[in-house]
């Protein structure tokens, strides 16, 4: 399934990764999954995004060097001597950062599992976390370890349900319909239940039921209708505001521009 706003299929190793990727996409970050951390020296993950700032971005010494520093083996592909390619579960590009070259690394691990609650000193898992942290520290990138239990289940479930309605390119015939709808009713969206807006789209704007549903879901995803997605959405009632504030709060927790 693609992660908005992209259309390329994505591949994740767990449901947590998928849900967190959706969450970060919702707050506006661009998600790259299974991002490689090369063994040799290589540029910053945001290298190339802004040519004016490329020269200011540090380079990573490479995982081989980092592992040497930690006195742990780097690892090779099984049965070979080819250096294994480390990957980070989610690499976020932060467009709201200054210059748009902010990044954040997220390692998705089941924090409530035995493996991370009672750490075996010889377990490779914690070693890898430490190496990832060093990598992020060398590049000045925020890094955190988490899984979906850090966020409200309802929020992630609703984002999973709304993700397919996130994209609405200008070439789509529904885009014009949405613009007409917003031109007329943008200021009143909070005042009426979502089901009423669906009916209105059908009656006044001639949209079919699937299109009307799609447009309302699109508005919810992009918080055109400020709805707190961490609470169950009742379409028969006016949406409870708070979604925009929640999105801003999560955004700040991931990346806050220095003052």
């Amino acid at each position: 399934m693609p992660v908005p706003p992209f259309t390329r299929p994505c591949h994740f190793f767990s449901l947590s990764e998928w849900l967190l990727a959706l969450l970060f996409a919702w707050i506006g970050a661009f998600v790259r999954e299974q991002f490689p951390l090369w063994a040799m020296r290589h540029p910053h993950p945001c290298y190339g995004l802004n040519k004016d700032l490329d020269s200011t971005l540090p380079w990573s010494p490479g995982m081989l060097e980092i592992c040497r520093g930690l006195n742990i083996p780097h690892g090779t592909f099984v049965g070979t001597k080819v250096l294994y390619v480390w990957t980070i579960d989610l690499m976020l590009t932060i467009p709201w950062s200054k210059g748009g070259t902010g990044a954040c690394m997220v390692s998705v691990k089941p924090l409530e599992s035995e493996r991370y609650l009672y750490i075996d000193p010889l377990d490779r898992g914690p070693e890898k976390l430490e190496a990832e942290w060093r990598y992020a520290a060398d590049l000045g990138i925020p890094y955190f370890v988490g899984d979906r239990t850090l966020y409200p289940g309802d929020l992630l479930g609703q984002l999973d349900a709304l993700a397919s309605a996130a994209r609405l390119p200008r070439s789509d015939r529904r885009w014009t319909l949405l613009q007409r709808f917003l031109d007329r009713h943008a200021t009143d969206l909070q005042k009426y239940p979502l089901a009423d807006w669906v009916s209105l789209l059908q009656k006044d704007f001639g949209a079919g039921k699937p299109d009307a549903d799609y447009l309302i879901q699109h508005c919810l995803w992009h918080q055109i209708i400020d709805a707190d997605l961490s609470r169950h959405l009742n379409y028969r009632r006016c949406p409870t505001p708070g979604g925009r504030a929640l999105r801003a709060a999560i955004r700040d927790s991931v990346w806050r521009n220095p003052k």
Partner: protein
Amino acid sequence: MSAQLYPGAVLTPISDQAPIDTPHRVLHIRQSCDRIVLIPVEPRRRNGRVYFTGYVSQSLMEIEEKLNPSNLSVAISSVAPRADAIASDDELDKKYLRREQKKSFARREREERWDLIKPLVDGPDAVLLFDPQLRQEAVAKRALVVATLPDQLRRLKRKIQDWLNQYWAGGSTRGALTPFTSTCGARGKEKQSARKLGRRNRPTRSGKRGNEGFIVTDYDKDIIRYSWRNYYTRGTTERKACRLMWREFYSTWLTDDYGRLRNVLLRPEDRPTPAQFHYWGQKQSPDQAAWRKQLAATAALRIDRALTGSANDGIVNIGQRGSIDSTSIDMDLVSTLCRLDRIGSAYRILVIDAMYGYIAGFYLGLLPPSAETVKLAILHAMTPKGAWLKWLGLDHHDIANWIPIHFQSFIADNTDARADRVFVALDDIGSGSLHIPVARSDLNSPVEVGHHRLHRSVDHNLLGTTFGQMQTERGDVSAPDRARHTIIEAIRETARGVYAENTTPLDIEPTEEMREELIANGIPITRASLTALRIRQGRMARSLMNIDEARAHMMPITRGTFTKHGVLLLRPDTGNCRKFIKSVRYLSKHPVILNKFREAANQRKSRDIKMYDDEFRYDPYNLTEIHFRHPHTGEMIALSGISADRELLGDCSYADILLRQDRYDLERPENLDAQERIRSNLELEQEATKRKAEAEYAAELDALDKPPSKAALVANKSENRQREKNLFPLGMPTPAFDVTDSDDQPDQEDNEVGNAGSPNPIQAAEGPRPRPSSPARKPITTSKPSPLSIFSQVVINQLH
């Protein structure tokens, strides 16, 4: 008083510039004197004693300044009370009461402390205690009242002061006076033992020294934990793992007299005992419990977990997640061609919506689970089912309860659904897939439960069921023996079962919304009605894709060819040899298709035979229709099947039709041979007739003196013809009508070869008889005038 500050609030320092270094609780604010009284919240611990320090007075303005957001160094926060502080008296007793006590120490102590300070704090003068001078006097006065002996005064004053500090620091509640019993005895910490615990061993009891036993240090604990994790694995015993630990860590290597290295374990007193190994090994984490170590990893994951969630957690829309899995049905089937032929079991793939467990579609067939069958199941879930129900004879079902759903994503295991072809197809229809780990079917419970439901409600109620058991009991009739149903019947019954499951009222407590939307309107709460309700509310993850587009991506493809009579499908199992399925042909009135038929009719012979071949999409279990995808427009054009056998398309699957054709191919040579025999017999008889005619002609020629010329032979043809016509009343010879003639007795002549009539098979088998001698020329005479038949009389009368 500041709007932010109030008695009871907790101030926490957040920078170095804060006037306090630890969290302090606000006790009293006196704005007129610019005074705020604070007391540290956290106790001090020294020499095993826990105590609270007294309050301090600070400048109110200074504190308020530090709360200013522009210069923030102090924050207002809160402190969670201790569990014992908010526990009731009974709860304290439950936790700390010992067998011989009526009241626990913690509760008794709390009551005593409260009784001691209550007169001071429980009254309008309590605020005076925040003046140090007045507090001292009040404390002394109270001590005098309570003391029974003069020696107790000093100690009592100290106590009262301590309890007052604890009371204020804990939030000025009675519970704050609860002693710190929960931390007594280093609760929660590992005890470092200095001597061997437990019963003394035999040598020690008998006075021997140096054999007391092994004391486990922290280092030994690490060794034990490591050994437990890595040596005690599935398939080994605890004792073996313990011995390996001894060899690795508690042994020494010695060279014997022969120069060989030998491993010698240390004395028992110098190494951990098996009991110590067991205790410290499994104590390190719940995952390391001894019973758990012997389970396979996947089994342990499956059974040893708390079920805090459910399969539809995070599911808010219909179609958000579809659960898909395959299994074999619990029954044996028979062939549609002959019910005596057993064909074994079949496979069923279910697609279930995770929100309410609504069964959206299924595949049931003889093909083992594969990408093709998974795609068919998904397509079935997405498509409207009116025509399908009609084909099955179930059009009495309410079509509103057969809801097509286009799923946003599917959750499946790692077998049939985890294939590139499935990924490509899902990608084409905009769906994703999630795969559960190996041997973790418990994570895909909706469909596993669905299988169980259908096994019980459908398979186990039909003939030929296995009841889910691999083997029958001795004496029972086996499932193959009891098998009676065909694959089509199995599909029909599964459809019935699915409909029943989806429309059965659910035994759940209805929500208010269900009452308003469903029960109030007389609609029972079923999986189908709940699903339909959510869809009406717009809670659908994906709108339905155009059915043609879905078919284009999901249906299997077969090859066929356009002919002037319609589309004939090519058999897929004959390699390069082109063989058609002739029992059914497909027609359409679509202009594109008609054009292809016309081209095939006119130009087929002049072009390569494969020129009119193309791909067609079909449902292997419903061959009433196939689809042709227009290469340029992408339009899916339906072609309807026609067959001379009216039951073929309704009762037979694709595989059945191929089987029928194979059977016919076996019988065909026999039929062809019979045709040849009959033709051969006919020709044989014709040859006899020809010989006889030739012989009579030759005899008539011989009777003449001189053979006539060819011109003489063909002359007078008209006169000959007229003469011949005059011979026969109707222009044709009619049989002689003799009343004595009986049709029951065959004429002698009829038995001779060369006469009309049924061929004598015995004579035919013996081969042609030798040509008989030319019989004497018989004059052609009309039959003896006999009474004409009524029909002949009528005709003649009319002619004349």
